[in-house]
């Protein structure tokens, strides 16, 4: 671990165990580091897990699975791609991936923000409980599955079964939607939606017209069983 500048710390992942790296991150953060740079992350899993300190960790390279998982308050920037479950169950804070990510991006996030500049695999924002997942590219199938609250913004295309069985929350898609999932329905975007989108797009430097996004919400037919709506339920039960 080397201090490069005041309140900035470098950690070389090469030759260190994941446990050692995460312990050094927490120690540096508790000692007041403002930014921690991880060198040679080399696609390693479970980096920056359960980081609760208000610190920025910058990965100079690819991350493996669960990068920034269970984050609460910190910022993680991946200068590369990330594997499955990036930012999973984030409570607050921010994860940014300057690249593509695997399946389950932002799964079950309760709050905070995940921004992916490239594409996300299947099941992005699955069971989202709060916060925002913004994807500059496209997302795979079953994204927004069983979403509960929060927002998923997709600047590219969305795969099949988008928003399947959503309870609540909102999905915005600028490109093509392969298909909507069970009980996911189109809704008209209002001023609040446009304002939200404008803010998100500007913040991430994404050039898109907010009014070009399609808004998708829950049809709420699956909230409670009704034998009169079997056509909806037969795919959802």
């Amino acid at each position: 671990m080397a201090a490069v500048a005041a309140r900035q710390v470098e950690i070389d992942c090469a030759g260190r165990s994941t446990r050692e790296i995460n312990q050094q991150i927490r120690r540096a953060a508790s000692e007041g580091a403002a930014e921690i740079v991880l060198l040679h992350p080399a696609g390693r899993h479970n980096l920056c897990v359960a980081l609760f300190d208000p610190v920025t960790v910058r990965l100079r390279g690819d991350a493996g699975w669960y990068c920034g998982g269970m984050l609460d308050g910190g910022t993680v920037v991946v200068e590369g791609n990330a594997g499955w479950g990036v930012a999973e169950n984030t409570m607050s804070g921010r994860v940014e991936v300057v690249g593509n990510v695997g399946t389950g991006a932002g799964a079950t996030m309760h709050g905070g923000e995940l921004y992916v500049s490239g594409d996300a695999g299947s099941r992005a924002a699955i069971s989202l409980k709060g916060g925002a997942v913004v994807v500059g590219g496209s997302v795979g199938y079953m994204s927004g599955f069983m979403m509960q609250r929060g927002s998923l913004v997709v600047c590219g295309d969305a795969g099949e079964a988008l928003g399947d069985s959503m309870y609540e929350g909102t999905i915005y898609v600028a490109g093509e939607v392969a298909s909507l999932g069970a009980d996911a329905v189109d809704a008209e975007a209002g001023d609040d939606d446009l304002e939200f989108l404008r803010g998100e797009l500007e913040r991430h430097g994404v050039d898109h017209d907010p009014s070009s996004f399609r808004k998708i919400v829950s049809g709420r037919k699956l909230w409670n069983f009704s034998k009169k709506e079997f056509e909806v339920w037969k795919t959802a039960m």
Partner: protein
Amino acid sequence: MENGDVARGFANDAVAGGRVVRPSHIWSPEVIEDIQEKAEIGRYRIRAYSTLRRTVHFQDLTFVPCTLTRIPLEGYRERCETRTVIGARHGAEPITLQTPITIAGMSYGALSANAKQALGWAASRVGISTTTGDGGMRPGEREDSNTLVYQVLPSRYGFDPHHLQMADAAEVVIGQGAKPGTGGLLLESKMSATIAEARTLPEGVDQRSPVRHPDFFGPDDLQIKIEELREATDGRIPIYVKIGACRVLEDVKLAAKAGADVIVLDGLEGATGASPEALLDHTGIPTMPATVLAVRALREEGLEGEVNLIVSGGIRDGVDAAKALALGADAVSIGTAALIALNCNKPVHHEDYERLGTRAGACHHCHTGGCPVGITTQDPELVKRLPPQEASERVEHFLNSMTMEMQMMARACGKSDVHDLEPEDMRALTLESSLVTGIPFAGMDRPVAL
């Protein structure tokens, strides 16, 4: 010949219009009622508890205590150890149970706050663990329970990494015995504003939890997930993996390979707060044969004693628990038995049982939220019927009785530690139980084998 002659000698309920009634075994009254109920409600039937079927069970085994061939310990006096230490496989701080029993995961939502509190207090006094459930850690749950296992469920309702770090162990739930391969269910009547907010759900919805985890699927993925949980807790706490009993031999090996410190194996008799009835009755395998397979799996992998095994589903008393230990489990987990100790199915408030369409002793209506004794309800008036202090004392007494029964069996078999019980201490009372356990059928000197 008169009709009355035909009917003579038969019980009244087997006779109608003077003739003997001949009900079908295929289209029995139960089947007819089932079809007509489904024709009315337009979906599968939902209820709580566990299967109503007779399964091969621990009751099909009997202990063969010491006689002249072995020397027993004094049944009411000599020391018989029950202390159980689990979860040390990967260097975490292990869990110490004063007796080899745990309270299974049951959510605040499925259970009332008073029920959860009573279970926590009882477990703490006895020196065993309780487990959270869907919806996460209830406010006060950490304080109520000295040893608390935090579940990591597919839904992640209420999952909070701070709570994970406060826990003594984490339990990754792959499935449960009552309904393996499916997720949790909490119906509208129990989805109060409080429960809904804890789960980030709209009030009054029928919550159908996912079955697949959102960020991993198979055993290789599970290994990385377990490592993530270790990173989140700095390796301090043991990681359990809970599975419903299906392909036990393979599943236990895979869970162990994925890094589980403790495997919780929940058999067909395992119960739940709400489930499609078809799943309760037609999925999974019973706890007793599942235990045998799990022990064999760990033995084949050379992990017996290193990966600990907790079995659950249909454990009714200390004798069932002692038999599970004799088959090789390190501990048992109880859910329904603990609820019954709380007062479940107690013959009081008869009118409320009737309103649910049932009676005390046969109530499995937890899913309705109308629990007459305040255990599986969120109705504030019903919850008042379960004062937690009194209720916790009943559970404490029951847990103590289980410990005494386990010790009694162990001492009678000449064992000074309940964990020293072994298959040789038992005989099978049925051919089925002999076949699945490899224990000799009573009266034979070798196991029944195909």
